């Protein structure tokens, strides 16, 4: 049942030009970035060749590409997630799901998975660029895999946050803005830490960015995975609670 809802959600995304537009624009920008990054590498390569333990193509081309993608997707994702529930509520189609024999959990998980599938498609398109480098050179497969995994987890977390935010309001734009606000807040939350030594480790721990960056460095740590999984679970639970509560208060 979850998959029925998820697949419907995914197909719905492609019924509007928005999904296509986002895919096209992102791919264009990231391809440009990728090529300019590749140029830089070509320039540096003769000098790097002489240095022992110098950063390779993965560090110079792939890591910055993934990092920028992460940030760009964070800016674009609210446009995708905003209508998940707010549109349904606005068009009164949520009734269809609520009166069907499916639970709130099915509905929220279905929506979340649908959005996540879409993000994974974006990720696959994106991954095609670094993978194309295999034609001419070899990459640090471990680093690439860990970077892609980090981006996948980041995107799933963004999807969960977006789905919850969309369940809060009938206005898609309000949902988009508040999603963007929360995501940016989580992205920059550790910026204040440098100036104040006394602040505990809490703020950096909460930051989406610090965890993402350790994946990009090729560090696969369970703490980072757990952070994303906790974030996803928290917002999905909040989404389920929100739908339940709406049934109670009307």
């Amino acid at each position, binding site marked *: 049942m979850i998959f*029925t809802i998820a697949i419907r959600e995914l197909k719905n995304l492609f019924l509007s030009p928005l999904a296509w537009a986002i895919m096209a624009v992102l791919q264009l920008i990231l391809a440009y970035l990728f090529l300019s990054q590749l140029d830089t590498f070509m320039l540096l390569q003769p000098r790097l060749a002489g240095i022992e333990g110098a950063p390779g193509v993965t560090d110079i081309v792939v890591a910055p590409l993934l990092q920028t993608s992460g940030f760009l997707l964070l800016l674009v994702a609210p446009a995708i997630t905003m209508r998940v529930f707010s549109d349904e509520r606005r068009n*009164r*189609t949520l009734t269809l799901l609520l*009166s069907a024999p499916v639970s709130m959990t099915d509905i929220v998980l279905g929506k979340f998975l649908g959005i996540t599938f879409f993000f994974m498609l974006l990720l696959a398109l994106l991954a095609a660029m670094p993978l194309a480098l295999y034609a001419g050179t070899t990459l640090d497969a471990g680093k690439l895999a860990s970077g892609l995994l980090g981006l996948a987890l980041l995107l799933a977390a963004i999807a969960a946050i977006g789905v919850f935010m969309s369940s809060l309001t009938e206005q898609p734009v309000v949902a988009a803005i508040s999603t963007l606000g929360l995501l940016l807040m989580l992205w920059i939350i550790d910026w204040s830490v440098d100036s104040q030594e006394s602040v505990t480790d809490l703020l950096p721990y909460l930051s989406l960015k610090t965890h993402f960056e350790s994946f990009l460095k090729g560090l696969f740590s369970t703490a980072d995975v757990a952070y994303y999984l906790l974030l996803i679970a928290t917002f999905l639970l909040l989404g389920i609670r929100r739908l339940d509560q709406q049934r109670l208060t009307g």
Partner: protein
Amino acid sequence: MDAKTLISVEQLYRYYGHHLAVEAVDFELAQGEVLGFLGPNGAGKSTTMQMISGNLAPSAGRILINGIDLLDAPKRAKAEIGYLPEQPPVYRDLTVDEYLYYCAKLHRVSKGQRSQAVTRAKHRCGLAEVSKRLIGNLSKGFQQRVGIAQAILHSPAVVILDEPTVGLDPNQIRDIRALIRELGESHGIILSTHILPEVQATCSHVQIIHQGRLVFSESMQDLERRLTSHVLLLETRERLDDTELEKLAGIDSVERLGDTRARLHFEDSNPADAVAACVARHDWGLVELSLDRQTLEQVFVDLTCSDTSETHRKTA
């Protein structure tokens, strides 16, 4: 036919904040019944229907669908319901076929029966020729029919229709009414509407809800009996003579409405034939002779327009 109870609602309450929208509503619906749910705007019709369909949680009370408690086992209970809310819950970006297949999947219609169920629902609601069109491009009437198709798709035991004939043209209304009567034979149907003749045309039971409480609940047969008139309306071309009419057997009193019009009150059997004979004998020239029926509309107005102080006294 000793039909089984499909819906049983016990002491249903619903508050919106401090506002009591539905108060102590009790009723039952058996298989083969079509229940007409009447009430002025804001009386609590839609709220009650939303609660029965599981879209809204009741503040207190119990709802059994086909013997399954809606609050204890919502998934199983909801499988027995088809619900059309006031606004049909249709996705404008989908074609009729895509939408109905999705609904069939949501309602767990097994893969083998899915296309059969969709075809049957489309056929019943007259949607066959628009299967491939986008719902958003269809007229309001067709969208409404897609909504109805969605509600009956999985042959639920109970079909709940909130104002199903809104926005339809007269021919479509007739089709939908015929469909409701047909469905009513094998399912239990709850129907809310503002259109009183619709209730008389389709329903086997009538309930009127006013300010959140049920004020009237009767079967159509009882209602018909109650509405049976004891007044004849007579109009003639020439001047009427009261005394001649009062002499007729069966007529209790004559109430003059003008020189050539009168209301004739009677008790037991309809004396229309005697009246007609009398008019003919005196050569008054019959223009109209009809039963002055009390309509459901009058019952409705009597129950829902009574000043609110009375209901307040009852609650106090």
